[in-house]
């Protein structure tokens, strides 16, 4: 199973096996990672599943599609070049090793 590392605001790292086909958001929510709120449960409506993808792994991702891109302008913490919505990141083998940082606030 692809392994995703979630880095908390306090720097704690958790490595989680997340089944392919699900999302980086669901991997967080189902493993009680704090700070991924996912208010709309993955429907690309809320921007409360924001993550900063680690610079070292950001090249594993396809670029954001327009709906994600639009929502990223409305995150609670400032948008950065590596900002993504974790519900839009479908887990595949290609994402194995991805590192994401949880922002300070989501709403």
């Amino acid at each position, binding site marked *: 199973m692809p392994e995703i590392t979630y880095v908390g605001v306090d720097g704690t790292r958790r490595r989680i096996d997340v089944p392919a086909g699900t999302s980086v958001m*669901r991997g967080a929510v189902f493993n009680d990672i704090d700070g991924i709120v996912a*208010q709309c449960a993955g429907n690309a409506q809320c921007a409360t599943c924001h993550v900063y993808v680690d610079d070292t792994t950001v090249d594993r991702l396809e670029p954001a599609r327009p709906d994600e891109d639009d929502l990223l302008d409305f995150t609670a913490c400032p948008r950065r070049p590596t900002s993504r919505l974790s519900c839009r990141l479908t887990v595949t083998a290609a994402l194995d090793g991805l590192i994401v940082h949880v922002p300070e606030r989501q709403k």
Partner: protein
Amino acid sequence: MTGDAQPPSVVIVGAGQGGYETAASLREHGYRGRVTLISAEDALPYERPPLSKACLKGDGAAPGDEQLWLRPPTYYARQSIDLVGGTVTAVDPAARTVRLRDGTAYDYGHLVLATGARPRPLDVPGAALRGVHTLRTARDAAALRASLAAAQYAVVVGAGFLGLECAAAARESGRAVTVVEALDRPLARAVSARTAEHFTRLHRGEGTRLLFGQQVVALRGDWHGKVTAVELADGRRLPADLVVIGVGVTPRTELAAAAGLPVGDGVTVDARLLTGDPHISAIGDCAAFPQVRSGKRLRLESVQNAVGHARLVAKRLTGASRAHYQELPWFWSDQFATTVQIAGHDDGHDTEMVLGDDPDAFSVLLFRGEGLRAVESVNRPGDHMAARRLLDGGGRLKPGEAAAPGFTLKGHLARLRDGPAPARRGVS
């Protein structure tokens, strides 16, 4: 929550979107008393929107699948939220207890009614035939999905969001689909004529038959009690081995009514979402609340509304805020590859303006007088997000401004934020 006194216990009736969010939000705001979340469904709290969309098509998550859970079981344990399975059958406001069908009773310091709504039945002969479905719960969705897998001719009664989503899922699964609607257009209560017209075109373009201005008078079945046809007022019979009834919902108010609380179309609450009893709140689909701006009573059926209500109640109970409820309503629906998003509440508009000249991607701005009231966006998520911000900030946009060439909601928002451009810099 001051001092060392044990905080009063909060009991929440209904573990749907609103009930779950109340419990989660109480903990988020540091509430340390007991939280009991009572669910009539023997399932962890889950999200309903996919039930009428991806779930139905057979390729998405199956109803009941953990993909639909809002949180995993460990979450409730970690947050000390007591999830109790059972149906509350009585509330005793004097004794401050609720009683479950099995006789168990729970004391509360504060009670939150988050009982949601139930589908309205179709009041015609044959409505109880096999193959006739309503859709509210994961269990309903599982039954509908099983029926759909075996069906050839699906008829959807009611062209509201739920009906159209089901129709789209059935069509995408390759069924012959007919939608029957009593009014002369789809989504009549929900969207402008322009947006409704788009959905008519969309569904027809996908090969779905839409019949407007038609009443269903009976459902007919075979001698096994299985539905075979839908009979219309004009005498036509539509073959059907699957019928979905999507004619709206009724708020579940009976507990509140039996407890002597004021009830209309929903449990009547004030601007802080309190019922007539200061120890009982009501939220989400079951609650009729006053819209602060207009004073009119509203009952909304959306995830946003249930979540927003829940958060307000949690803040009130933890002393974080005593504010009135005035969150901007918003809503979305997916049908085929189209997403429609609505920001604001259209309680009557006099001007409609369309942004975007792509027939499949546009936004309709609805004004009353000089004020923007609501925005419907079809495949324009950026407009929707900008509209949410703009309307949240009071909707400062005049029809004349929106008519200016090159106008965009995002640009307008930026101008409002940065203030008018200083004259010497010039514009454009």
